[in-house]
């Protein structure tokens, strides 16, 4: 029994609730926020791998004295193996993702602390709450528990949009909630179908029941459940048809908060994606569906990104398009491709965070996000400009950086599984990604400065520079030594297949 596992969720929730008690004592709040934000990435490093059963209710099979007192119908059936409690499983994959999430949450919180005048208040609360919810989704081995925390994270995402004073943020928030309230209950309905078929919501139990033919794997109930859960997954992760609203959500939040929003989306994508993969990968059309939706996401994300004029919307669409690469990894379903997809998820977390913080400094300096009205910002702070440029290279997959490694792995995986078309599309999309990034970069930094551009007399905040630099270092380190991450992930991928 490892006590650190639930702490990863409890600490941010407790911090979120306690922070606003110290309203007006700004120093206490800042100190507390920073300490918790530092602790967040440290806990996953010191925790041991293992399972945590809430309330100590382990499966009956592990407790032979209790099992012997029960009727023999229970002893001999699968009930003895089923998990009665909510189970958190903590392994190598969770360690990497929670660590990266912790780092990103730290920078998001640190930046918004240093750039906002009001330190306590709803934004901090929502950031910590969302981090806790997403961590719980990642750790949980219980599909209903995932749904509950997903709904919490959706509420916090709405809240984060509402706290930004961007134009039309309320409209976007309401649209997101209405679409979400169509997607969410359908996801719940799908979980209900699985519950009706198997009688348990624990993913390990469901997999056991299906693989041991306790239920008919091709029964209409499970098929219908798969359809609904898959649709819910599309909604939770912003794949098409939900890519427009997801990119709208990213672009309506403050850039520092968008960093967290995209991290939430990526982690929810992989967590629920892994759950679906574990349960339903036996279905014959499972892989095809995921590949098709990933390809649509990549193409639509990238083509829509070119046509935007708001740079936040550009990065938002690019972030949605990059999700397609992760999906490809799941869809090809070989060991290499899943490793590549999850590695791409790690890279996307880091790179998109870098780009949002980097371009966020422009918004901080000028309060303008329209690329047509910007220009010549490289004079202002060339170091940040160059670091953002390298970040963009990483996103597009330029050799020594991490995006290159993961995209190369995906291309290799698709070639190995006999789909050269997919690798061609992947290369094409990454070229266009590069073009989109260069378009945004050129019109913000390199174009001659428009005469009416004012307000660039402030300095770029040091916290942003530090965040960009550290994220860039992570990019380069992961690019040079990808096995730091891929070794762990490939073990996990081996277990998944």
């Amino acid at each position, binding site marked *: 029994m490892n006590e650190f596992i639930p702490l990863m969720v409890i600490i941010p929730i407790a911090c979120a609730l306690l922070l606003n008690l110290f309203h007006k004592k700004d120093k206490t709040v800042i100190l507390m926020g920073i300490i918790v934000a530092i602790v967040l990435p440290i806990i996953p490093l010191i925790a041991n791998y293992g399972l945590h059963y809430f309330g100590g209710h382990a499966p009956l099979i592990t407790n032979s004295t209790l099992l012997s007192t029960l009727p023999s119908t229970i002893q001999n059936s699968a009930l003895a193996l089923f998990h009665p409690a909510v189970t958190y499983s903590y392994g190598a994959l969770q360690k990497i993702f929670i660590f990266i999430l912790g780092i990103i949450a730290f920078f998001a919180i640190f930046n918004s602390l240093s750039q906002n005048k009001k330190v306590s208040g709803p934004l901090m609360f929502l950031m910590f709450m969302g981090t806790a919810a997403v961590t719980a989704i990642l750790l949980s081995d219980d599909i209903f528990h995932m749904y509950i925390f997903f709904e919490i994270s959706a509420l916090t995402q709405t809240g984060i949009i509402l706290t930004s004073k961007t134009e039309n943020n309320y409209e*976007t928030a309401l*649209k997101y909630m*209405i*679409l979400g309230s*169509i*997607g969410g209950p*359908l996801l719940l309905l799908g979980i209900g179908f699985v519950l009706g078929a198997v009688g348990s919501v624990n993913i390990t139990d469901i997999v056991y029941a299906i693989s041991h033919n306790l239920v008919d794997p*091709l029964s*209409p109930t499970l*098929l*219908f459940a*798969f*359809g*609904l859960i*898959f*649709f819910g997954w*599309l*909604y939770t992760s912003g794949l*098409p*048809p*939900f890519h*427009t*609203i997801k990119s*709208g959500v990213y672009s309506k939040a403050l850039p520092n908060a968008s960093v967290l929003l995209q991290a939430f989306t990526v982690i929810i994508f992989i967590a629920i994606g892994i759950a679906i993969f574990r349960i339903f990968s036996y*279905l*014959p*059309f499972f892989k095809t*569906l995921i590949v098709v939706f990933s*390809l649509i996401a990549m*193409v*639509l994300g*990238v*083509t*829509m990104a*070119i*046509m935007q*004029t708001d740079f936040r919307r550009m990065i938002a669409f690019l972030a949605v398009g990059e999700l397609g690469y992760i999906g490809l990894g799941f869809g090809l379903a070989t060991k290499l491709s899943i490793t590549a997809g999850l590695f791409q998820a790690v890279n996307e977390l880091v790179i998109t965070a870098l780009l949002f913080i980097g371009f966020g400094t422009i918004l901080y300096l000028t309060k303008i996000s329209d690329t*047509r009205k910007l220009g010549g910002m490289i004079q202002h702070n060339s170091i940040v400009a160059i670091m953002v440029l390298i970040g963009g290279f990483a996103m597009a997959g330029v050799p020594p950086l991490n995006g290159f490694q993961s995209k190369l792995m995906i291309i290799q995986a698709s070639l190995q599984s006999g*789909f050269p*078309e*997919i690798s*061609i*599309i992947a290369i*094409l*999309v990454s070229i*266009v990604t590069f*073009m*989109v990034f260069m*378009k945004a970069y*050129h*019109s913000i930094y390199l174009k001659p400065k428009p005469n009416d551009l004012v307000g660039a007399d402030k300095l770029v905040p040091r916290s942003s520079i530090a965040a960009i630099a550290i994220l860039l270092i992570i990019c380069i380190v992961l690019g040079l030594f990808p096995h730091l991450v891929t070794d762990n992930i490939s073990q996990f991928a081996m277990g998944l297949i």
Partner: protein
Amino acid sequence: MGYYDRIVYSLRNVTNIKGKLKRDPTTNESVSSALAAELTIISTLLIASLLLRHINIVLTIVVILGLGLILVTNMPIIPKLKREQSDSLEKMTFYAILTLGILITLIYWGTTNV
């Protein structure tokens, strides 16, 4: 009008895309990005439809020829696509429900009848 003329005409239309892009002040950048988007979407659709060869070769040839014809004759696709991908709630709900319907139909009928 022959198909050759039509293709040339629609290509000219693409380069003349600034008229289709509403009242946005047009720059070289926006035209080139529209062109790039147009080419990307056409080429990816055609390449992706090559994946059908795992099902049936003849089907692939028919689909690619048909798709190519449709795409070329409707050439400035991106403005239309962009109008469909707008932030309007009605359109987003429509596509969400459409996807749900297709998914459920495919999954249910696809498994019971294959």
